[in-house]
């Protein structure tokens, strides 16, 4: 039992720091912060990571992975957040990529993996459907065989950044008999295919990142199906546990906590900095303690995964606590801003012009952050999973 870094680990940390110093991630981050240049910033940063060989560290080496240990991944993530470097967009690299190299055929691997790695292909996820929500198995989008193609009809919803996507990976129903989890297949669909339309969904933070994607007689080659017909649910499920691990966002929350401390040293009330306010101190340290626990909970899961144990239902715990902590941080930040926490910095004036440099962002984070306990399988669903699979209830 120890977390002491080995000499190799310390050397690795130096490498990471050197890379971030050279790569100047803050330039990409600035582009990403502006919705108009978001996509450009993401791709620019991904290409730099790709050239460094670090874009998909968890992938097997043969497909372009970095072969990092759990400790190295942890070091990278800590350094990334310290350097204020962007995280990669998960849809290609963390979601569909592993499905393709695990369940796809050689042709599919050759065709899709390079574009995922080098950032040329932007992917989005087509799981949820209007009316199905967290009940994924209830999906209705259908793919009917027609020669060497499927004809896809239906709608997907809550599709993040579908407006930028080149490809979408979809769960579709190819068989209507049997239990709901059966008869689902996993398709890769070119977003340029005729019959696909994307409608934006405006979120309560005022930003457009979510979409509804409609399929109207969309023709998809059988060759774009991953694995067996009717086995899509199995493939997707193996992915969900990983997705939930991603969702804990420990390093990001640590960085937010540090930022919150700093904000509290300069946000005043009655002439005293809010860091001296006892209510603030109590709420801050309560989150801090929770986050300290989450960090080691994540490390324990990662260590287990490194020993080839599946993250399994433990990942649901990470998702629940991780998102709860994120929301607590959002809440404390927006409340630290007082009435300014409700401000909208419009086009005419920047936040700083209006006298407050974090209220507007705190509002956006708080509002969009409400989604974290809903998407990726709502936290209620996660608790159902743990009750059933871990506690045997």
């Amino acid at each position, binding site marked *: 039992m120890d977390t002491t870094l080995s000499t190799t680990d310390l050397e690795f940390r130096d490498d990471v720091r050197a890379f971030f110093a050279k790569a100047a991630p803050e330039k990409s981050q600035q582009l990403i912060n502006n919705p108009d240049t978001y996509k450009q910033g993401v791709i620019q940063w991904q290409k730099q990571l790709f050239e460094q060989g670090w874009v998909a560290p968890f992938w097997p080496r043969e497909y372009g992975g970095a072969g990092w240990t759990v400790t190295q991944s942890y070091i990278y993530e800590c350094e990334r957040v310290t350097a204020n470097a962007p995280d990669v967009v998960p849809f290609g690299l963390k979601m569909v990529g592993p499905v393709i190299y695990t369940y796809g055929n050689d042709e599919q691997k050759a065709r899709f993996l390079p574009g995922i790695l080098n950032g040329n292909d932007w992917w989005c996820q087509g799981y949820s459907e209007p009316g199905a929500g967290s009940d994924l198995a209830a999906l209705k989008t259908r793919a009917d065989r027609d020669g060497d193609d499927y004809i896809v009809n239906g709608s997907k919803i809550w599709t993040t950044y579908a407006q930028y996507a080149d490809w979408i990976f979809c769960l579709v129903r190819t068989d209507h008999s049997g239990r709901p989890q059966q008869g689902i297949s996993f398709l890769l669909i070119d977003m340029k295919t005729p019959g696909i339309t994307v409608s934006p969904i405006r979120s309560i933070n005022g930003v457009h990142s979510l979409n509804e994607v409609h399929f109207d007689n969309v023709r998809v080659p059988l060759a774009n199906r991953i694995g067996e017909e009717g086995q899509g649910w199995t493939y997707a499920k193996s992915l969900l546990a990983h997705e939930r691990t991603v969702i804990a966002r420990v390093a990001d929350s640590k960085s937010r906590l540090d930022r919150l401390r700093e904000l509290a040293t300069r946000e005043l009330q009655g*002439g005293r900095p809010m860091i001296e306010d006892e209510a603030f101190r109590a709420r801050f340290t309560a989150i801090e303690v929770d986050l300290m626990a989450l960090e080691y909970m994540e490390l324990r899961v990662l260590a287990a995964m490194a020993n080839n144990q599946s993250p399994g239902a433990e990942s649901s715990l990470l998702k629940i606590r991780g998102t709860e902590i994120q929301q607590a941080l959002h809440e404390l930040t927006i409340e630290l801003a007082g009435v300014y926490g409700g401000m909208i910095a419009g086009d005419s004036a920047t936040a700083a012009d209006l006298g407050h440099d974090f209220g507007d962002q705190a509002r956006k984070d708080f509002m969009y952050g409400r989604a974290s306990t809903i998407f990726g399988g709502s936290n209620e669903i996660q608790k159902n999973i743990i009750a059933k699979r871990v506690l045997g209830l």
Partner: protein
Amino acid sequence: MNFSFTEEQQMLQDSAARFVGQDYSFDRRQQDVGRTTGFDPELWQQFADLGWLAVPFEEEHGGFGGNATDLMLLMEQMGKGLVAAPYLATVLLFGKLVEAGTVGDLRDDLLTRVIAGQLQGGVAFMERQARYALADTSTRASRTAAGFELSGEKTLVLNGPVADKLIVSARTGGAQQDEAGISLFLLDRTTPGLELTDFRLMDGQPVANLRLTRVQVTADQLVGPENDGLALLQRVIDEALPGVCAEALGLMTHLTNTTIEYTRARKQFGVAIGSFQVLQHRMVDMFTACEEIRSLLYRAVCSADKPGTAEHRRNLHALKVLTGRRGKRVGNEAIQLHGGMGITDELDVGHYVKHLMVLNSLFGDADYHQQQLATLSLPM
């Protein structure tokens, strides 16, 4: 012990409920708040015609002579309908300050116009560095031969972009944190040296920051006694608080009801999600929260005839604490239980939540009022 309403109060409640229920759809609200003014001037005129703008003013000043109960009934309905109107800014803050702090023709003129819906007002009492500390005032009003010269910055003036007249707090004496030495001044929005920067809060309401550069005012622009403006301001805010919390209760009630309806209709895993026990208990908590707020609201309204007493102040603090705490929870739960739909701009839920959050931050949030309560309840 009597929690019933007079016939007049019942009528006021009914007319407000009718307006909200029949004439004021969510679409209309969205349209109204989207205007430059943040509200529909015709609607404001309608409020004037209904007598609502007269509610809190004395009959001798042309008002309705309403008490805290009347205000509570009206404001709760405003909350239920998420009504976009500067009632708080123009009537409860500006109007009431005018009534209490000015005299004679000036008062009569201003109040007549407020009640008739022909004058918009705003009160500039917040400053950037003050957060919720009302006394923390750095804007200075220095004596001149003709009166005073005001310099400094005020922030987050509700209805500021629209207000014809503004009441501004500034320091005529004392140090920045002192309770004494604050005076209130009535300014025209067109006063030379007064510069406004407009923006919006997340519930869509327009606010303004003020920059005052050597603004010249005469002594008759003083509202209330010189150096003792804070007490006046505090009294007017105290009178407004039950109204603000009643509006919040209206919002919470709507959020609770709409969540119950949604979960009854929304099916998942083959059944209405409202049949899941976990969601049921959480909706019970939402309902309980509304009942608790209503109870504290009645409590504060019942002691409103003893303004400034420790008892009434405790009741106000408690009300603001619980409205803030439970309001936050009800808002978050309403979004969560609506699932993905809850975070769309299309549904009304998010908009109710955002207005609720703004209300709960005004005049001090839950943490702030809990600390204030502690100074009364646990003297050291």
